[in-house]
């Protein structure tokens, strides 16, 4: 409760939480409000917004309902963003903990692998991966994860390096605890807070990467995505700019919301963390 109250003290956090709440509501409500296939034709093509109130945001070049697409697109964006971030944090935390706790050769090998991933621009990596394996939701998530797991891994490793020198880790060894149990039960939970602080940046980056992949036609073709909608509108950008602008705004808001909410969380825990 106290943490919640502290969280809602900053205007950024409130704005972020509102935007995120709206997005989540959109994603959850999509199948209820628009139960049919969002990619089905719903009316005349290129109907501008606010003309026909059964199609409030109008239609695209093929006559598909923009509002339905926007709602279903929120599902994809959030799902990919959260799944990729969760995977990246999980892999990063495990790799970082192993590297930091084991030290020596294991640390060297894991960190050189992480270096290799870091030197390749993460978007290129995702692009290459999807073009080889083929576009589907799972592949897109994996492709994005490949590019971002190194950040959490490095943070986790640094944190583990300091924690492993603490007395309670020595104490766990003295009572005969297995090294793996020490690493994942004693050390990792205490190393997590700064790693989790990265999550907002990673979710935001993942949403953007997914949109970019979809824009280039490398998203899951069976799903509506905001990136795909923007790409779709590109051909008629002069005559019907709203086709690109509406999903574009949604994308900006989503990234902003995630980022602001993440900042709010970091702010609300900052006071606690700065003290010993």
């Amino acid at each position, binding site marked *: 409760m106290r943490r919640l109250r502290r969280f809602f003290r900053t205007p950024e956090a409130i704005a972020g939480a509102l935007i995120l709440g709206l997005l989540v509501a959109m994603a959850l409500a999509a199948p209820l409000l628009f139960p049919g296939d969002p990619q089905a034709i719903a009316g005349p093509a290129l109907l501008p917004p606010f003309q026909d109130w059964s199609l409030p945001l109008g239609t695209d070049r093929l006559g598909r309902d923009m509002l339905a697409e926007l709602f279903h697109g929120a599902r994809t964006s959030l799902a990919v963003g959260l799944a990729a971030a969760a995977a990246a944090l999980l892999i990063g935390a495990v790799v970082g903990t192993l590297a930091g706790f084991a030290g020596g050769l294991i640390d060297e090998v894991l960190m050189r692998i992480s270096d290799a991933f870091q030197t390749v621009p993460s978007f290129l990596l995702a692009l290459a991966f999807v073009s080889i394996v083929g576009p589907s939701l799972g592949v897109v998530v994996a492709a994005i994860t490949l590019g971002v797991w190194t950040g959490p891994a490095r943070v986790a490793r640094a944190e583990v390096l300091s924690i492993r020198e603490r*007395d*309670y880790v020595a104490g766990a060894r*003295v*009572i*005969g*605890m297995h090294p793996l149990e020490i690493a994942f039960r004693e050390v990792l939970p205490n190393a997590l807070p700064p790693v989790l602080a990265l999550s907002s940046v990673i979710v935001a980056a993942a949403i953007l990467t997914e949109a970019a992949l979809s824009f280039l036609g490398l998203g899951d073709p069976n799903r509506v995505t905001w990136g795909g909608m923007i790409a779709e509108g590109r051909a008629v950008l002069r005559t019907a700019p709203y086709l690109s602008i509406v999903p574009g705004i949604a994308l900006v808001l989503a990234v902003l919301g995630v980022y602001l909410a993440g900042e709010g969380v970091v702010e609300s825990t900052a006071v606690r963390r700065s003290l010993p």
Partner: protein
Amino acid sequence: MTVLAVSKLSKRYRRGGKPLAAVDDVSFEIGPAETLALAGPSGSGKSTIARLVLRLLEPDAGRIEFEGADFLSLSGATLRARRARLQMVFQDPLAAFNPRATVARVLDDPLRIHGIASRAERPRRIAALLERVGLDAGLAARAIHEISGGQRQRVAIARAIATQPSLIVLDEAVSALDVSVRGQILELLLDLQRQERISYLFISHDLGVIRAVAHRVVILDAGRVAESGEARAVIDNPQSTIGKALVAATPKLNRNTPP
């Protein structure tokens, strides 16, 4: 018969490229139900010896024989199993426990790891351990950071005796405590020693405390043994330079009227 025999133990650190002897050719023995104190100024190697004996650090040279067997040759699962007999209590009881832990979890770990009690039996064993160190069994549900420093050190002792060790290393275990609490903890340690015949390797910078609870003392200076012997004899009449300096530096309370 000895519980612990340390011979010619050495450990060097590298600082700025040049080796620095933290522990240099140190030997001592501890018998059953005996308290051996290690004393010395900071940097004399006391804590390094504690960590070497517990295999938290590996020595460069020397032998450690624990309960008649070579302790340094053990590794992996055999070492972990052997650790049940050789326990430790740290100086700062707050730092010695996982900040997220509860009292119950802290005491559950050793019982579980060494298969001392079944899952169903453990809560009862934990309650018994808490009572053994003079704490209320109801404390089990509390978080470590919620209880007082003296209570924490009692929990640390309960954890150390959970596996029925023959030797406990006490690394400045009473130094951070208030004097009024310190006396009670020392009494508890002596009581455990008498009842369970536990030996202590008692590390302290405080000669007053050592004189009160230790049978024998080893005074260290820059990683080497300066002198050793029966605790009261050494402290009342130190022979080495460092021993004399330590005695001279210990604050004295010259009370003129008996309490």
